[in-house]
């Protein structure tokens, strides 16, 4: 019984939250890695683009709510996301046309493009804050929990409860669905293959008749989809605050590089690597050991490797270690 309690404890406080957080990071990391692989620059505007997509989702959700449209137990935001995606794709293509294209055509060095993306970051951040303001917004409606901790305790008779929020299940489910479609697209369709070819070797791809404009356009379209869904899922699960989104850019970068930048599958796994290590290293295991160890050996301290204040620092340290020992990332991306 104690053993079961210990497992439920870990599931409730580590596994489910880490899986959710990892999914949210994974979507962002794939976004970063696609831009890096195909357009060849580090996009510092990632976090703010996600915030922008989320903002559009929220505005449309509010509109639907004012009309009285809802999805019952599911959050209304799900209905708003497709419209937000369309808007976001337009935004991405607009930015590309008026900002990034010039430097791409001139074959500017990647650093210059990264600098330009900082300009885009400033502007996007300003637009988001001017339109919706910097404060915390919750836009989740519908049924909040799938299993409540209390119900679970009653059902199983265990001491530990397991609470699963519907936003968590939604996040994991949507992420897996989206990522599978994306990988199918990249590996099986002709367009996807041409994108991978372009990423591997630009000149060869051009020689074999791949249209670079089309590849770039499709990349931005996918980026728009990923940014909107990734951002909206994070906002549904936690809450929407522009500053948090900007800060999330850092673990997202860490995830993309740990997974091997330029490699979408690596980025996907990298998200989970970062999320799990952040939560595993900062969780206080006292209760866990109380369950599995006999009473005489119970620990007196919290058995916490690092205080939760260092949550972000954990992922950054992992990144530094990976950069030192495996600069290509765990799952081998582009050679640095």
């Amino acid at each position, binding site marked *: 019984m104690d053993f079961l309690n210990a497992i439920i404890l870990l599931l409730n406080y580590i596994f489910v939250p880490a899986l959710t957080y990892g999914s949210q990071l994974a979507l962002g990391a794939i976004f970063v890695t696609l831009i890096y692989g195909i357009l060849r*620059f*580090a996009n510092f505007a990632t976090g703010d683009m996600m915030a922008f997509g989320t903002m559009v989702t929220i505005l449309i959700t509010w509109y639907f709510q004012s009309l009285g449209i809802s999805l019952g137990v599911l959050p209304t935001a799900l209905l708003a996301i497709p419209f937000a995606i369309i808007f976001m794709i337009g935004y991405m293509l607009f930015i590309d046309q008026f*900002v990034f294209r*010039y430097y791409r055509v001139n074959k500017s*060095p*990647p*650093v*210059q493009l*990264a*600098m*330009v993306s*900082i*300009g*885009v*970051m*400033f*502007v*996007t*951040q*300003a*637009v988001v*804050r*001017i339109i919706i*303001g*910097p404060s915390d917004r919750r836009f989740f409606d519908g049924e909040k929990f799938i299993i409540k901790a209390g119900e679970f305790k009653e059902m199983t008779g265990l001491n530990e409860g397991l609470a699963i929020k519907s936003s968590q299940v939604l996040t994991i489910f949507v992420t897996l669905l989206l990522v599978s479609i994306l990988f199918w697209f990249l590996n099986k369709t002709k367009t996807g293959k041409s994108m991978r070819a372009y990423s591997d070797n630009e000149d060869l791809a051009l020689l074999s008749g791949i249209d670079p404009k089309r590849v770039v356009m499709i990349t931005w379209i996918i980026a728009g989809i990923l940014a909107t869904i990734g951002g909206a899922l994070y906002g549904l699960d936690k809450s929407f605050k522009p500053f948090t989104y*900007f800060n999330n850019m*850092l673990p997202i*970068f*860490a995830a993309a*590089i740990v997974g091997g930048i330029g490699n979408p599958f690596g980025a996907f796994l990298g998200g989970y690597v970062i999320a799990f290590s952040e939560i595993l290293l900062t969780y206080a295991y006292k209760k866990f050991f109380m369950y599995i160890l006999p009473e005489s050996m119970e620990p007196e301290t919290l058995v916490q490797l690092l*205080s939760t*204040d*260092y949550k*972000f*620092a954990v992922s*950054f*340290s992992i*990144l*530094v270690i990976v*950069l*030192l*020992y495996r*600069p290509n990332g765990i799952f081998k991306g582009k050679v*640095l």
Partner: protein
Amino acid sequence: MRKHLNVIAAYSIMLGLIILVGIFQSWNVALSIFNMCLISAVMTMGANVQWGYAGLINFGLMGYAALGGLAAVLISVDPVQEAWAVGGFNIIICLWLIVAMIFTIRFVLKNFKKSKIRTYGIAAIIIAGIVIIRITSGPSIEAIEAVNPATTGFLGGLGLPIIFSWIVGGFFAAGLAFIVGKVALGLRADYLAIATLLISEIVIAIIKHEDWLARGVKNVIGLNRPVPYEVNLQTTEWFINLVAKLNSGKLNFISNVNDKQAALNQMVIEGSSVFVKLCYSGLFLVVVIILLIITQKALYSPWGRMMRAIRDNEEAANAMGKNVVKQHLLIFILGSAIVGIAGAMLVTQDGLFTPGSYRPMRYTFLIWVMVIVGGSGNNFGAILGGFAVWFLWIEAAPIALLLINLFTAGLPETHELKIHLVESVPYFRYLMMGMGLLLIMRYRPKGILPEKIEIK
């Protein structure tokens, strides 16, 4: 003279703008903008040394500025005797443990061949070291933080004049830059940017959460000043006389003695804060001028030529026998040290150290905008960028308000859109920075004052 016409013109416009602020808003505001401009100028010089001279991209400026600020606290605050008594010994032992750990790792690295066992061995040493350090430091850190937590709760500093911290801050930042440089300088440009950004976040996390060091997010306030306090000035004889003398024209118009005294008091209060700011300006100007002379000399020296050669073609410079790795490390350290000095200056001016306020937007990206807008590779350009961007950063809100009122002039005061826009005025500064950066990068990629290398 003709050659430098654009430099002179740009700087006179900039000074003119600040003087205009002085006339239309107040001299207090103008001087505080001017002081912050000077500090920003020092930071941009640091970034310019790295990016403009050597092409190294450092997005970790925030971390170095924060370390400079930390130095200001550690130098100027009086030591907290009680805290030293309860936990100082253990903390010093921990410092020695860290030193011992580093030397053990160096020893292992030198005397064993590269293998998997060595890697695991080093990992084991680090983990064991961290565990031992946590066990030794844990209780004493708690004891230190328990000493009068509302006002102290940390070890305190050395109790020296805060001016010294400017130098120490430079050394702190240089030390960090040495470690970061050793770790990250081999990376390609954009990876270096990300790595330095993340490392600076780690530094901030440590400063924020290690309360025994500098009170963390509880902030340290009331740092000693290198200049007189306003309150003291207001009661000093010579200062009151000075103010009276400077304003004698105005004062003579007032006939009533009581009114005259009241007006004089008001002038003294205003004058004292202007005087304090002027003192700071003087100190900062000295730093800026010294750094400017050094960096200009360096730029036109053989060393500067070599750095440009390395920046423009690393392989060729390497083939000519220049040690690219070593020079990169050197310039990374120098640039970071300058940013550290600026960080210490900033905390000196504010008189308080708030680790929570160090955010990448303000201390990394904004500084980069300054360098790019001003003109990388050109010291005068970088300083001008610091001035122009900081000026715009502060004056963006009034400008935005003016524009909003202009464009919504047809709308009634209670119109929702107008109220919303007026409420979000502070965020227009981000918009202006972003647009400015994008426009400059597109139409004047070398900045307002581009790099000009004279061949003598």
